């Protein structure tokens, strides 16, 4: 489905009584609803994010890490760090080492945030900007897809 076809569809709908239309073709699903609301998403199998961590018991001093939550819509100035390759996501260089970053940490530009492994290629993902880690979106050891959000960073100058 290309942009031209999409435009034609919208044109076509204008003069009808149909208020909403959904079509799926070659893996792309389009829903058009009158009133200016167009949504567009792929019908590829989506990553199911694990549910949010169970709330820590009252005795715990620190709140449970926010790993594994679905990514909340970022405020306009927030930066989403996404996976540049398909692979396995790790928050530390080895299981017995602390995570590179935790929620609330302030990171520098170029600081390593995590590793994504593909075929024993360990890809160190660095922060593009200085800022504060607002969210860690994936559990360590989980598979990640290309473009999947990993972190949300609130930029600081």
């Amino acid at each position, binding site marked *: 489905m290309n942009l031209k076809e999409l435009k034609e569809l919208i044109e076509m709908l204008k003069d009808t009584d149909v208020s909403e239309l959904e079509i799926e073709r070659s893996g792309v699903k389009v829903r058009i609803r009158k009133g200016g609301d167009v949504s567009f998403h792929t019908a590829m199998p989506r990553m199911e994010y694990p549910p949010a961590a169970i709330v820590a018991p009252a005795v715990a001093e620190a709140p449970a890490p926010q790993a594994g939550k679905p990514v909340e819509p970022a405020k306009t100035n927030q930066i989403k760090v996404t996976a540049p*390759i398909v692979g*396995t996501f*790790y928050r530390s260089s080895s299981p017995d080492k602390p995570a590179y970053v935790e929620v609330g940490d302030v990171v520098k530009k170029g600081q390593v945030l995590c590793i994504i*492994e*593909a075929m*024993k*290629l*360990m890809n160190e993902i660095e922060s593009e900007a200085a800022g504060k880690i607002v969210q860690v979106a994936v559990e360590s050891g989980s*598979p990640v897809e290309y473009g999947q959000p990993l972190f949300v960073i609130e930029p600081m100058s």
Partner: protein
Amino acid sequence: MYKEKILNLLRSSHTAFLSGEELARKTGVSRTMVWKHIKSLERDGFGIEAMPSQGYRITFEPDVLRQNDIKQGLKTKVVGKEIHLFPEAASTNTLAMEMATQGAAEGTVVIAELQTSGRGRLGRKWISPKGNLYLSVILRPDIPMHKAPIITLMGAVAVTSAIRDLCNVPVAIKWPNDVLVASRKVSGLLTEMSAEQDRIRHLVLGIGVNVNMEQNSLPPDLRPLVTTLAAEAGTKINRTELLRQILRQLDCWYKTFLNNTADVLREWEKLNMTIGNRITVSGAGETLEGLAQAIDEEGRLVIMRDDGATRHVAAGDVTILKGARVM
């Protein structure tokens, strides 16, 4: 410099003695200096016999890597253009990553005779006593990010080819890049990459090859899983020759990789021992069992499970299940 010249002269005269006078004349240094260099070679581990009125000859060559020996007839275009050789390093990968960050040229190779903190993936140890090969190569390929992991298969192809060229040992690749004899590991690769969102800054291809180490330098629990080329071939291996051949093969396959990754994948298929076997892959929080069917165009392992569903695996530990080979 003069020391290397003297060494070359002694080597080329084989068992015949070379007089101090002749060595002095041919290298252009004094006889006192010749004597000093001979002493220095002895400190390096060479056995040198000195006979009054006859001169010197080599009686023993130590199993030591020397910069000049490695470069002798190397003739590579990129890999090994610059070689840094250390008697000891914490980890050649760590060193090479630091050098790369500071701007070291593509093809720079870092070699150590032993590693005190040799690493595998996920912080696992790579046991690194003397007698083996430990090298890391800095590369800066200008390629799309999703093709980068294929470089690890390229590394395995190069190492396997080099071993096949020189040692009479039936080596093959286990996905993605372990080099095995039967089911025991002789070589492992760990690649580390520094990248921005869509651009590779540099990557370091780390290679460990078990060549001549004593089996008892390994912890007992690893001995059934690990072997050396010397043990398999039944004879000590010339590490310098093997290292040179690995560098040559890397140079050649890196060029192929940059031109056409599919050629690397085809060669990997020829040298592999994973495809066609029943396997398990563990990693990313689960273990899959099924038939290793193929590798896809990005080098991922395609595994067909018993229900007929296929999965493309990007990372994990493969175990080949015995006695279940599917023809």
